[in-house]
C-alpha cells in the first residue's frame, strides 16, 4: 500500500488530501468537496492540467493573443502543446473563443483564444 499527499488545485483553498493507494482501491481523506476526490483520483491515474499560453498575431494591436485549453489535458503533453503553439501565427482581428486547435491530441478539448486582438 502506498500513501500520497496531494495538494488539490481545483480551487484556491488548496486542500491537502491524503490518498491511500492499494492496487485499484484509492481511499481519500482531507478533501472538503467532491471535486477534491475527483482531482486526486485523476492525479494518481492520469494527471491533467488546463494549459494557458500565447500565440503570435500578425497586424494586431498586440503581437500576441492569449490562449487556453478548454479542459485539462494530460500533463505529459504540456510541452508538446507549447511547441505546437510556437508554430501558430494568427491574423488580426482575433476574437475570444476563436479555435486555434480542434480536439487537441484527441482529448476532446480545443485550444481557444482568450484575448480579443484588434487589427492595428
Amino acid at each position: 500500500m502506498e500513501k500520497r499527499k496531494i495538494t488539490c488545485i481545483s480551487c484556491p483553498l488548496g486542500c491537502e488530501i491524503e490518498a491511500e493507494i492499494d492496487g485499484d482501491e484509492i481511499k481519500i481523506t482531507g478533501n472538503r468537496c467532491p471535486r477534491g476526490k475527483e482531482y486526486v483520483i485523476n492525479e494518481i491515474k492520469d494527471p491533467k492540467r488546463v494549459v494557458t499560453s500565447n500565440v503570435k498575431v500578425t497586424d494586431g494591436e498586440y503581437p500576441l493573443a492569449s490562449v487556453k485549453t478548454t479542459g485539462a489535458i494530460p500533463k505529459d503533453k504540456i510541452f508538446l502543446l507549447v511547441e505546437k503553439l510556437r508554430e501558430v501565427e494568427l491574423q488580426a482581428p482575433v476574437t475570444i473563443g476563436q479555435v486555434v486547435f480542434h480536439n487537441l491530441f484527441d482529448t476532446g478539448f480545443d485550444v481557444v483564444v482568450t484575448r480579443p486582438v484588434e487589427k492595428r
Partner: protein
Amino acid sequence: MKEITVDALVIGGGAAGMAAAVELTQLGCDAILIEREDRTGGVLNQCIHNGFGLHVFKEELTGPEYADRYKHQICDNRIKVHPDQFVLKVDPDKREVITVGVEGVTCYKPKALVMTTGARERPFSNLRIPGTRPAGIYTAGVAQKFVNLQNYLPGKNAYVLGSGDIGLIMARRLTLEGMNVLGVAELMPHSGGLARNIAQCLNDYNIPLELSTSVVEVHGKERLESITLMKFTPDTLQPIDGTQREVVCDTLILSVGLLPQNELIEDFVQVDPVNKGVMVDSHQRTSHPWIFAAGNNVAVYDLVDFVTLEGIQAGKAAARMIQEGFTDCGQIPIVRGNNVGALTPLFCCLDEAPFKFYIRPTKNMDKGRVKIGPGVIQKVEMGLKPSEMVDIQITAEHKEKIKEMGLTQILVEIEEV
C-alpha cells in the same frame, strides 16, 4: 484647460473601477472612468492564467476573459472611458481632479470620486540588497507584461525571489516559454502564495522552493551574472553565517509583495498605518465624504472576484451620496487583535446594509477561531494561512447585536486553537 462636470469620476480602469463605473451607471448616475493605460482591464490583461471569476461569474476564466466581460458591460452601459489620462492632482477642497493626456490638461469636477488605483509591486530598490545594479532584475509583473503582452523573454536562466502568487505563476510561465527557472527563494518559513500554485507552478516543473532563504547580494556589471543566497533563522529572520551560496543566473524575478497605491490622496484621507491601504467604512467611504475607494488600494486581495464585489459596493455608495447627499449612519471603529494582518473595512456603519470583512491571518494556523466583537461572531476556520484571506459576512442581525451590546469599537482577532 478643459473642464468636465460629472456625477462620478472613477480613477483606475481595473477590476474595481470597471465594477464601480458599471454600478454607478446602472443606478442612474453619469460616470466617467479614467485610465492611465490605453485600455481598461488593469493587471487582468496580462494575467493569462485561469482561476478568475468563480465567485462573480460562477465559472473559471482567464484574466483577459474576465476583463472582457466587464469591457462589454462598459460598452453596453455606454460608460465614458477616458484612456491615456494621467492624474496629476486630486484637490480635496475644490473637489477637482486634474489630469494630463494626449489632448492636454483636463479638470474634472465630480460630485463623487471613486479611487480604484490598485497596487504597485514592491520594487528592487525597496529591498536594499547590496551589490551592483545590472540589467536583468525585474518584478514579476514586469516580466509578465514582457512575456504575455509584448512577446519578449527576459533572459535565459532565472531565479525568483519571493513566493507570492505572481512569482509562482511566472516561474511556470517562463519555464513554458523556454527559460530555465532555477528556483524560488522565500525569506519566511512559509510560502507567500497559495498551496495550489506551489503544486501546479513549481512541483509540476520540478522547480525547488527554498524557504527561510533570501538573496543577499547581486553580481554583474552590465547584465546580472549571479546572485548570493543565504539561509535565515525562521523566527528572528537573521542570516545564518556560512550558508552563503552563489547561483549563476542572468535574470532575477521579484515577487516580494504589493503596495497599495495611494499617492494621490494619502495626504488628506486616512490611511491604514499597518497595510498602507485607504481606510474605508463598510460602504467603502473614505474619511472624505465625497471620496470612495475599493480594490487593492484599500487592501491587497487574493481574488479579483473580491475586488469586483468591493467595486460594486463603492459604486452603490457613491450613487447614493450623489442622489441623496451624505448619510451619517454611525461609524464604529474596527480594531485589529491578535494574528490579524490586512483587514478591511476599518469602520462599521450601523445601518442595515450587510458587508464582508476581509481578514488576512499573520501566520499559519492548523485551526483558528475568528472572533468579531467581542461576542458578535465566532467562527472556527481550518488551515489558516497568510496567503489566504478569510471573508466573514456581517448581516443586519449582527449589526442589531452590535447596537444592543453598545460596542464602541469592534475587535477582530484570530485565536489559535
